[in-house]
């Protein structure tokens, strides 16, 4: 039983991390009109699908579904609470903590759905699939790296810095592609340079929120996990 589940997960990872990049390369090489903007959106949408389907097929119980919904709503609200401070947002930290507490799958869904819902309030655009993918992956890897292990705060801080940088770098790739319809390193450099102050605030906020929120937040979530018997990863993978 357990082996079968492991196999299923393995297949999922292969799809997520091998087939999608292959798709990207194939698209770049063989698509007649080399329109990178469209291509990148299609890819972003496609990338979201296996993660969401994997969640749908998983054995999450009612309490876990509700907890994810709660985390999504909290993430969106936290973005609003700190609205007066530009770029200084706890969103990434919240997604990372969810991933750590509830595992990669839940982390992905929380990240992606927070992006989708906050864009319902703040306006959707071609960037929505990218944000979903970025936040989703941040939550996903947080779960893979830290879930069910003893938490080393410095490692989480490092991870938050890394994901802060990655998020900005990826979103800037999209900006460049969108403007030029092709990828241009000079333009990319310019955009990156222009966004350095934002990236800096972003990283600082990630670190601050991770340092302050992780411990109490984990306590609260662990209590819920124990008291209500949810997100036991061994049980889910069965």
């Amino acid at each position, binding site marked *: 039983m357990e082996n079968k589940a492991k196999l299923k997960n393995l297949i999922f990872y292969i799809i997520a991390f091998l087939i999608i990049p292959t798709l990207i390369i194939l698209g770049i090489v063989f698509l007649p009109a080399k329109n990178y903007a469209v291509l990148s959106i299609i890819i972003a949408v496609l990338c979201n699908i296996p993660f969401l389907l994997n969640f749908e097929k998983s054995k999450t119980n009612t309490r876990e579904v509700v907890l994810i919904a709660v985390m999504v709503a909290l993430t969106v609200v936290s973005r609003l609470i700190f609205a007066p401070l530009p770029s200084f947002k706890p969103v990434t930290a919240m997604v990372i903590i969810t991933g750590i507490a509830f595992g990669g799958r839940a982390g992905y869904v929380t990240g992606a759905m927070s992006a989708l819902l906050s864009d319902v309030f703040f306006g959707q655009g071609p960037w929505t699939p990218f944000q979903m993918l970025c936040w989703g992956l941040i939550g996903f890897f947080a779960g893979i790296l830290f879930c069910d292990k003893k938490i080393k705060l410095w490692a989480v801080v490092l991870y938050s810095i890394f994901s802060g940088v990655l998020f900005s770098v990826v979103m800037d790739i999209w900006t460049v592609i969108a403007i030029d319809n092709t990828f241009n390193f000079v333009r990319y450099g310019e955009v990156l340079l222009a966004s350095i102050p934002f990236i800096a605030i972003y990283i600082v906020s990630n670190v601050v929120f991770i340092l302050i929120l992780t411990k*109490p937040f984990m*306590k*609260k979530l662990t*209590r819920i996990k124990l008291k209500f018997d949810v997100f036991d990863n061994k049980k889910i993978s069965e």
Partner: protein
Amino acid sequence: MAIFKIENLSFTYSGAKSCVLQDINLQIEEGGFYIICGKSGSGKSTLLKLLKKELSPKGNCLGNIYYNGINLMELDGKTSVAEIGFVGQDIESSVVCDKVWRELAFGLGNLGYGDEYIGARVAEVSEYFGLGKVYNSKTSELSGGSKQILAVASVMAMYPKVLLLDEPTSMLDPIAKKSFVDFIARINKELGITIIVVEHNMENLFDLATNIIVLDNGKVVACEKPNTLAQSIADKHFYKYIGLTEFAEIFAKLGGKGVMPCEIKDKRKWITDNFVVKDTTINLHEQTSQQKNVVLFASKLYFKYDKKGADIIKGGSINLREGEIVCLLGGNGGGKTTFANLLTGVYKPYSGKVKKDKDKKIAMLPQNAKGLFVEDTVQNEMYATAKLLKQDKAFADSLVGKFQLGNIINSHPYDISGGEVQRLALAKLFLTKPDIIILDEPTQGMDMQAKEYLKNFVEQHKTVGGSVIIVTHDIRFAASVADRVGLFFDGKISGLREAECFFEDNSLYTTECSILTKNIAKGLYNIDKVVNGLERKPQA
């Protein structure tokens, strides 16, 4: 035929030493209206949850529960979900979805019905319960009462045979309570659906019930019709704690025999037939405490949230004296809480002024104080607030003693009972060393013991020279503690008067005691005064 048959049921929570329920034997008849009551911790909620398979708490359960002759544990999942409806007390979590129509369809979708069938049922339910107007609304825009009605309606969409309600009205204001109770009565009378309600305040439900089941320490001590309940329990102090109506409590305390009258004219007749007023010379004297210092004074406050919005507070004024308890009555949404926030300085009035005695500190206990706890134990909660307020731990520890929190010091603030939540919130409030305290709906969702504690607490605060403002819609509680009472209506307080005069002169908005004794005696506006003010006629 009995819809539920409970045989020798005992239950122990996993990890607990003593059992919550002990050898319960009950028969619930189809179409009946049952109220389960008892003190906090008597096991009434546990009993109710055991009737709903999906919510059965973890623990050791002995004995059997039969639903329509089938052992509940063997009942098919879909039947259990559809036929046994359950609505809990927490309004915020009784609604799942974001839109009313989705909420109504939620259960039916879970049962696996197709869109067309669900559409038809949802239409039927919304039409029958008059939800057509809000059908497309967001659930967050509904008032507390409408949310609770929606919660029941969305259970009704599954055509249940029995409805289990766990303190459904405890978070509602009196008006919403009444309309919710009417709603439940309609379901019982028109549709013949069996109702089982757990309540610690039966005020509105009492006359509707076919049976009242009283639990004490996990045992059934009485299962009676409402009008014979009073004589079934010998211990008269017990009545105080199970939340009877005012008259039922008076009837029990005065040693009423036989069938209790249920109409107001019969109740009055019962009093005049059996009792005489001890002291007929009571004179109502207005303004007795005028000589004391005014510690808080607000005149003609005006406030609104939006620049373009309507005024919420329109000329609200108050004067609060040293050592006095003032109650502000009024329904929800009238701006009472906003007014209290103006007094504490959270909001600033755009016109009018709040003047406070410089040496006095003011603090407010908000409604549902549970939502303000952040730490993982009661002790840490106290220390964290002490740190925020720059107080030392020793002071926090002394307050733990004062508010009797010692035995729950290591519990999680979300695991303690409603009364304990309030004591913790009060203890936190006293870290600011307040002289004037404002309590916002302190009795909401509280059982009788917690109310009793609160009453003693404010009276004690009064004796040490503190002042209290209680913002509430609980007239009965106000009548039991207030020195002065005012009605908050249309953005201001109309007629802040001595409690005796307020309740004596009001004919509609007043206590049952006051209505009962209107033509018999003056000033008997709360239960204690009625019980002490009357004496039995010498038997002829």
